[in-house]
């Protein structure tokens, strides 16, 4: 049930990204693009710089060198909340939910970038702000239905099992109606059934909402199954880029995964 090749124009391109923490180089001259409507996987062994790459895209890190072109505009040093406002939503490897809040409230925060009313109306909780709240609540209910999490709508997320938290986090990202969805190891630590559900959701999101997805994942079976194109990083460098089949047969990739020593 792999996704169709329905990719359009380039949505985001990273060009020659260099990034170091102190003396440690995390990313070295990485360039690739993400096309509209595709599921793009970023894979690589541990410490290959995958999460750093995601953090660069979403504005948590600012690379020392290189450019990011998103929707045709090249940007420099953009703040995370502005990146979010421009239509990029993400999930985290170690789940970053608002643990003291309910599932519903968590997903409502995902609507943050879509809410326009000013502070004053908000403070009064009246008039346009009220109508707006109702409109957003409707959308959030749609997400809850989509992810089949009705039963935990009012549960404090800190009390939920791990797999459910992952799902709520996806819901919060979806609530922003993102153009680009970044998933950082969405299936890590899940059992087989939860993984299947998550795969189905990723494909459904891609199909129903037309959302472009970039995901980091360790489970090769999952990656090969659901992604259109795969970019492979190793020690901060790009070593391969192509369709799952191309990547699978690439000798560098095989070496990297088998741990062949670097010259």
């Amino acid at each position, binding site marked *: 049930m792999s996704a169709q090749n329905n990719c359009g124009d380039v949505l985001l391109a990273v060009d020659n990204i260099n990034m170091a923490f102190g003396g440690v180089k995390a990313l070295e001259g990485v360039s690739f693009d993400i096309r509209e409507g595709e599921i793009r996987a970023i894979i690589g062994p541990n410490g290959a710089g995958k999460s750093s790459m995601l953090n660069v895209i*979403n504005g*948590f890190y600012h690379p020392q060198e290189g450019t990011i072109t998103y929707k045709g505009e090249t940007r420099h040093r953009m*703040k*995370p*909340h*502005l990146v*979010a*406002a421009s239509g990029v*939503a*993400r999930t*985290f490897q170690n789940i*970053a*939910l*608002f*643990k*003291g*809040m309910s599932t519903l*409230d968590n997903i*409502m*925060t*995902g*609507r*943050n*970038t879509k*809410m326009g*009313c000013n*502070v004053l109306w*908000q*403070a009064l*909780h009246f008039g346009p*702000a009220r109508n707006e*709240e109702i409109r957003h609540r409707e959308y959030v209910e749609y997400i809850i239905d989509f992810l089949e999490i009705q039963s935990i709508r009012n549960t*404090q997320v*800190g*009390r*939920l*099992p*791990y797999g459910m938290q992952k799902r709520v986090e996806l819901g*919060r*990202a979806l609530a*922003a109606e993102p153009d680009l969805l970044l998933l950082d190891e969405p299936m890590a630590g899940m059992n087989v059934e939860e993984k299947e559900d998550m795969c189905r959701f990723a494909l459904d999101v891609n199909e129903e909402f037309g959302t472009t997805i970039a995901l980091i994942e360790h489970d090769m079976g999952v990656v090969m199954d659901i992604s259109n194109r795969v970019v492979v990083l190793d020690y901060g460098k790009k070593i391969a880029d192509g369709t799952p089949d191309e990547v699978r047969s690439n000798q560098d990739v095989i070496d990297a995964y088998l741990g062949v020593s670097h010259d």
Partner: protein
Amino acid sequence: MSIETIFFFETVVSGLMTGVMYALVALGFVLIFKASGLVNFAQGVMALFAALALYDFISPDGWVYALFGFTFPVWAGIILTIGVMIILAWLIERLMLQHLVKQEPIILFMASIGLAFVLEGVGDILFGSDVKPLDIGIPQGAWDWAFDHGFYVEKLDLYAAAVAAVLVTVLAVFFHSTRIGRALRAVADDHQAALSVGINLRTIWVIVWSVAGVVALVAGIMWGSKSGVQFSLSLIALKALPVLILGGFTSVPGAIIGGLIIGVGETLAAVYVGPYVGGAIENWFAYMLALVFLFFRPQGLFGERIIERV
């Protein structure tokens, strides 16, 4: 009713009013602590600062009169002071918080002590250090109805209680059911996640500090109307600490209830126990109470116990 009973009730009521004061200051603490994990030592000084600013807008002894020859009416003075507090919040974010992102709590705490000194100094330079009677037209004197029934209750105290109740209700609604309230809670919970959903941390901090500033203003007005605007106002910040231990650092209702318990407790202790231990008991009783309380409920009365699965 016997004279003793009446006296007891009057003591309790006056203790409650002191408690409202403590609660208001503690409330400011809780707001800022929730949003940025910072124990704001300067909360008391902010109350002093706000009261001083208000005094200067509306009193003929103030700056505004000295410079321009007129004073603002009370309502305009309050609005202007709120404006001052918002500017102050903005400055604090710009000059201080922005540079302290991701620092240890202890460093933030030290910074807030620094902030307290700066504000105190600036207040001193700008407004002078003498006691200033603040009169914004809250009726003074005994509450007639109670007086007719044999009680002595200050009208001012009644107003203070009413204003505090309204403030707390408004804040509760604000936090619970508005987008900004939700964003505030989100920031309190997880900074990184809040950023990723497009919440601007800096805006949130300015809002929180502004709200804390408004709360400080209310506390400053009440305290100032009662005993004049003076330096000792900044010391009630210290009393807020036992209140927070009692109520829990993260709970708004906790701050209110904690404040009332401490207020009543220390007034009663001062009246009934004080004579036997040589007075000044109100200076340390609150801390004793908090200490005892820590034994039984370290997270405070209403402190959040977030249950996490491992």
